[in-house]
């Protein structure tokens, strides 16, 4: 596709009634979603929802977003056929959507550019964000630098240590990184701390939420800004193969890259949607992040969804070799897609993901993020199930540069 002309139309950004699956006025996807937050935050959430509702129908906003996606993020991203990798998938044709080629190296840039523009419309000068591995933090710091916003990133102290390089990147981009030392000192605690900052500084600050979870309207807004992935991919795969794929695969932590690629295919009933969660050391080990496949319905971080919790509703800590999937909750729209049967969710262990990580590097010269490697591992298995005629689109949500420390340790490099 040529690099001129818009990627997005108003309908692409928000669907505008072509879909039957927008949340209701309370942000509910069926029984999931909604708002479970302190009353103090309700006016801010209402404000974000109202400003977004206006922006998504505003040609000028769409033009600005589209311009940044093209000239800054590097969109549209290409599709890549991976025939040598596909040999391990029973000959099914695997095609990658290359979000790893975006600026900052992961799909996260789509959401942060959209929300940073929204922050300007909200008249706010400061953004805060949570981050696990540091990818959303880096993306947020990047967008904040670009648009001249003050930026504070909350990151679990344990994660700060594990991801020192990303901490340095955020600092270089002008952000303040606050290590969070309470609770499990990881992503979920960073989210708690970001909410505490937000409720205190809500007049000046937008919480630039990093995934399709959290209270309404975040699941809808983050989805809409990530939606460009699937909008492009659907058009591109029709051009490339002459038909829709048999399946679309994506990794699911909070679920933004997966919703981003799934969404444009939801009405294509013949296209299977497969989400892959981190099975960590396996279900039986208890060390996993199998929120949809082994969790139960509850409330976490402001939204009703599937949660890893004990019999009394206390959150259970998740585990994954991939920090980006290491989260005990998941976006409510995924919960709804699961229960409605439209999407299927399965687990991929650390070992299976690392095998796919290595295989893609050796067969195609592409080093994927470990998050994305879960989807790659899933696609290999799915290809063997569907047979050699199948076309499988995999969202390669990010690149693996950030994961070299983990890879060196895992493979003894």
């Amino acid at each position, binding site marked *: 596709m040529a690099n001129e002309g818009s990627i997005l139309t108003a309908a692409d950004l928000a669907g505008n009634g072509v879909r039957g699956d927008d949340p209701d006025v309370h942000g509910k996807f069926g029984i999931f979603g909604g708002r479970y937050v*302190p009353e103090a935050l*309700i006016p801010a959430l209402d404000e974000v929802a109202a400003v977004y509702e206006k922006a998504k129908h505003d040609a000028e906003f769409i033009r600005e977003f589209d311009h940044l996606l093209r000239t800054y993020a590097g969109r549209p991203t290409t599709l890549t056929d991976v025939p040598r990798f596909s040999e391990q998938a029973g000959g099914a044709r695997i095609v990658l959507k290359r979000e790893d080629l975006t600026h900052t190296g992961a799909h996260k840039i789509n959401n942060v550019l959209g929300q940073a523009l929204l922050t300007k419309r909200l008249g706010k000068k400061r953004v805060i964000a949570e981050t696990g591995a540091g990818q959303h933090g880096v993306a947020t710091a990047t967008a904040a630098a670009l648009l001249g916003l003050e930026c504070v990133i909350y990151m679990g102290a344990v994660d700060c240590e594990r991801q020192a390089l990303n901490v340095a990147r955020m600092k270089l981009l002008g952000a303040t990184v606050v290590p969070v030392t309470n*609770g499990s000192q990881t992503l979920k605690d960073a989210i708690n701390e970001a909410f505490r900052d937000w409720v205190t500084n809500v007049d000046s600050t937008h919480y630039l939420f990093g995934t399709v979870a959290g209270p309404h309207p975040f699941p809808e807004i983050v989805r809409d800004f990530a939606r460009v992935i699937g909008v492009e991919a659907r058009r591109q795969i029709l051009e490339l193969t002459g038909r829709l794929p048999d399946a679309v695969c994506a990794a699911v932590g909070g679920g933004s890259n997966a919703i981003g690629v799934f969404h444009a295919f939801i009405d294509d009933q013949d296209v299977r949607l497969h989400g892959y969660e981190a099975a960590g050391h396996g279900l039986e080990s208890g060390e996993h992040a199998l929120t949809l496949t082994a969790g139960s319905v*509850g409330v976490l971080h402001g939204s009703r969804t599937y949660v890893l*919790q004990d019999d009394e509703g206390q959150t259970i800590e998740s585990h994954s070799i991939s920090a980006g999937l290491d989260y005990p909750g998941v976006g409510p729209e995924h919960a709804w897609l699961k229960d409605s049967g439209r999407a299927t969710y399965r687990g991929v262990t650390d070992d299976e993901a690392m095998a796919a990580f290595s295989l893609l590097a050796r067969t195609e010269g592409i080093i994927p993020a470990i998050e994305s490697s879960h989807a790659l591992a899933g696609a290999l298995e799915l290809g063997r199930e569907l047979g050699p005629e199948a076309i499988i689109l995999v969202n390669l949500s990010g690149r693996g540069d950030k994961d070299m420390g983990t890879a060196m340790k895992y493979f003894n490099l």
Partner: protein
Amino acid sequence: MTTLQTVFAKAKADNRAALVGYLPAGFPSKDGAIAAAAALVEAGCDVIEIGLPYSDPLMDGPTIQDAVHRSLSNGTRIADVMRTVEGVAATGAATLVMTYWNPVDRYGAERFARDLANAGGVGTITPDLTPEESEPWRAASASAGIDTVFLVAPSSTEARIKAVVDCCTGFVYAASLMGVTGARETVNVAAEGLVKRTREHTGLPVCVGLGVGTGAQAAEVATYADGVIVGSAFIRRLLDAPDEAAGRESVAALARDMAQGVRRS
């Protein structure tokens, strides 16, 4: 069992505000929490809120987070919370549970309401349950005969205040400031305005919480509110005490100071 209605009627008759103390169950220990709450009651607290420890307390500041973390590390379960309520209610104070929504949701709303009523609890405060999501809990509470308290905040619009107070029975919790729990140097000036705005929509008592830590602050809040809620300042004293007995004495001394404060105006 002392009801909230009795407490506020009596405080009104005495021409003073009610004093409401918060402590989490299971902190500093399971029995220590009951003893500390009993010390608060003896020192003049009219109402006790027992906090249900939760792994993700996103509206709490560092002091309560610390106490809750210790409580969970002590293995506190909902049965312990109910036992704590039972022990505290026996002192004659009106006893509520303050809890994030997920533990109640998981336990089952009807079961939780019934068990709380059976333990002598008079109601709950649910800081992250919005009016839009509150219907099942209000129904369960009504059928168990317990009160439902929700929060208004300085940022609340008139429409939101109305929506919240329409869900409240017992009293309305007015958060004095935009922020998390924790004692502050001064009580936010927004609190008085919020109480006034809230009264335009309800005849229920309005209690002010967040940031109250001294007798003088309690006295100040008592000039415009029906109740003064104190949590982190008590917990700070329990955290700083060398042992549980010293902690009890320390919180009792602060509670006496507060109890004088609410009678000063």
